[in-house]
């Protein structure tokens, strides 16, 4: 897209509003905040109960070059390229985020009008991609449970999310991990010194 082309925009939503909405969605499905959602099962077997017309399609990789997932506007069909779908079944963090992102599109945008705006008038709160990312992060990493994580690694493990998504979520929530302190506690200097001493040739 060149600078002169129009942007696709939707009605504005703040990060807080999207977070609240994602929490409501989790609540509707009775998803526990500190348990990672099994995204493939959720998408194919559970989500349809809220959007009965919603189903997923898996396309051969060559039919979706460079695209991991897509949601059709006007009918909530979520498409995945075959490789992404296989990754999703293996609970790959990036594929899980893609799936949550597409769920965000299906819930937030499949029935809302899409407008075109000048590229120079970019406002992130009206960008459907930004909104879907915010939804995915909030859906996969509920705020309260996220704040209880001492390190980014702990959050990555708990929510099965990639490092950069965890760090983006921390930034969005203005949350600082106590990672450095904890890492020092895990490897106290005295222990390291003893290890060094023991490893010295006698």
């Amino acid at each position, binding site marked *: 897209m060149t600078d002169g082309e129009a942007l696709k925009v939707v009605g504005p939503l703040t990060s807080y509003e999207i977070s609240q909405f994602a929490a409501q969605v989790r609540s509707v499905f009775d998803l526990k905040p500190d348990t990672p959602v099994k995204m*493939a*099962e959720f998408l*194919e*077997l559970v989500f349809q109960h809220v959007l009965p017309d919603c*189903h997923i*399609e*898996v*396309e051969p990789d060559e039919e979706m070059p460079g695209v991991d997932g897509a949601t059709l506007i006007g009918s909530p069909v979520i498409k995945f390229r*075959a490789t992404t*779908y296989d990754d999703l079944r293996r609970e790959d963090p990036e594929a899980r985020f893609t799936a949550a992102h597409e769920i965000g599109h299906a819930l937030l945008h499949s029935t809302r009008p899409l407008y075109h705006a000048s590229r120079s008038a970019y406002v992130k709160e009206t960008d459907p991609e930004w909104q879907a990312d915010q939804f995915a992060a909030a859906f996969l990493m509920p705020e309260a449970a996220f704040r209880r994580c001492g390190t980014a690694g702990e959050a990555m493990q708990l929510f099965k999310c990639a490092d950069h998504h965890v760090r983006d979520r921390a930034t969005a929530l203005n949350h600082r991990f106590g990672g450095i302190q904890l890492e020092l506690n895990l490897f106290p200097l005295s222990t390291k010194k003893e290890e060094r001493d023991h490893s010295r040739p006698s």
Partner: protein
Amino acid sequence: MAANLPLGNELRKIRQDAGLLLGDLADRLNVSASFLSQVENGKKRIPDGFIGRLTGALNLSPQQQRNLERAAAHSAKTFEIRLGNEASVNDRQLAHVLSAHFARLTPASKKKIMEIVTGEHDD
């Protein structure tokens, strides 16, 4: 393109009722998830013997199998009449006449043929 949708919808319903992901059923059928997805979404023609494989893979009841076969019939746009090597000239002629003149048959004629073939009568 939505040629196979009745079959696809029926298949998706049976699969989801069984708690299976697309990939799970694809594994059981030894096909790719994208192939099965395209069958479900009416983008791929149903291969020969596919309903039988589905029946085995999903352990379908006779009623479920009949529903799938009916849905497959409603989905298909073309049908093949397979003639064995021993097919007589009359057999070949009948197959040809049926395929060539099917569109011109009246509803009453089609009903009569259906009754002859299936042995089912409305009365």
